[in-house]
């Protein structure tokens, strides 16, 4: 506690009032034993406090409280009775609208997500990012996938834009852009199947 106080006079006031924690009180007692100036200040503070207290007490005795205590208590008691006798105002309980369990930030986040998904769908349907048409031709026991680039430019764009996670698209397309037949085996990238159109 002492650490938060600005000067010795404040510490001494708390010491005199007996409001210092035991640890701090012992520290002050040690200082008082070795610092005469501090002990003198303590004595002055005590003297001043006592002097003011005595003068206040004398003044209170001479300056009668301007009211009779019993009469005051009775009149205030009467006011209290009146207040207590008054019907207590009805407490109107307004039905609060049901609180949503959703977190406030979920609503704008949901709207933003919906806009994002909607935009993605629109863009994908407009064909902006459909450079090729992948056709899966079922042939016999295996399925053959043939890719037909719409144009060479689209092919390059398509090549540059995607890097399939498991298999490079360039492996599927021939360097000249012509379709490259390929039998779908177990290791065919699912990515290719997603971007293409599967025809049975």
């Amino acid at each position, binding site marked *: 506690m002492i650490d938060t*106080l*600005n000067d010795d006079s404040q510490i001494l*006031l708390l010491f005199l*009032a007996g409001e210092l924690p035991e640890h701090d009180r012992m520290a002050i007692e040690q200082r008082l034993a070795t610092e005469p100036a501090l002990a003198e200040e303590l004595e002055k503070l005590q003297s*001043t406090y006592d*002097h003011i207290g005595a003068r206040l007490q004398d003044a209170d005795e001479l300056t009668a*409280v*301007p009211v009779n205590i019993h009469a005051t208590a009775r009149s205030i*008691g009467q006011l209290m009775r009146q207040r207590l006798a008054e019907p207590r105002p009805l407490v109107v309980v307004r039905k609060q609208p049901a609180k949503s369990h959703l977190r406030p930030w979920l609503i704008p986040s949901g709207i933003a997500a919906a806009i994002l998904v909607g935009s993605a769908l629109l863009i994908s349907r407009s064909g902006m990012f459909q450079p090729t048409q992948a056709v899966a031709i079922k042939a016999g026991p295996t399925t053959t996938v043939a890719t037909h680039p719409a144009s060479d430019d689209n092919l390059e764009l398509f090549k540059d834009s995607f890097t399939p996670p498991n298999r490079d698209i360039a492996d599927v397309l021939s360097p000249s852009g012509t379709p490259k037949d390929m039998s779908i085996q177990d290791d065919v990238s699912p990515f290719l199947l997603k971007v293409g159109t599967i025809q049975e």
Partner: protein
Amino acid sequence: MLHTMVPPIVPKGQEPAPPVVSDEALLQRLRDGDAAAGEALVKRHCTALLHYLQRVAGDQVAEELHQQTWLSVLDHIEKFDPTLSGGGFKAWLFRIATNKANDFWRSRGREKVAKEGLKLVTDEEGPDASHRLHGQEQADKLKRAIAMLPESQRQVLMLRYYSDMKFLEIAQVVGCPLNTALGRMHKAMLKLKALMEE
């Protein structure tokens, strides 16, 4: 041995016997609708509270503020929580009284009330002040000196002398840090002593 700071002032002849029923128990009874319990509380704290209000707001308004304080106690009785209110009922009571005094100062304007307060004190001297008893002169001098203290210092000083509150509780009542309350107390003591010695 060194813990000799005098206890709060209780006028001679009016030392209350140790209360059989605690303030908090009386307050609970008042809460339950027993106005007699409220009356008992008023009697118990009336003198100290009135003296405090006289010192911080002046004789003219002390009685009115005293009544307002008790009615405010009744109005806010449900809010009092002895487990949360440091210092118990008395500290809560003096906190309400201090707020009432502050409201009074705010509503009247500090400068105006300060001048009126001093005027009230000096008016009481009257033309035959020199014939008064020495004690009365000293009392008047003290009142004048108290009136000259800044309001913030006066409140801390009077709360310390008229209530049972610790400095930490006083700091909470007046809404300042402990070191500020102690600083105000120290300055008020020195200033009051100097004014009384003039």
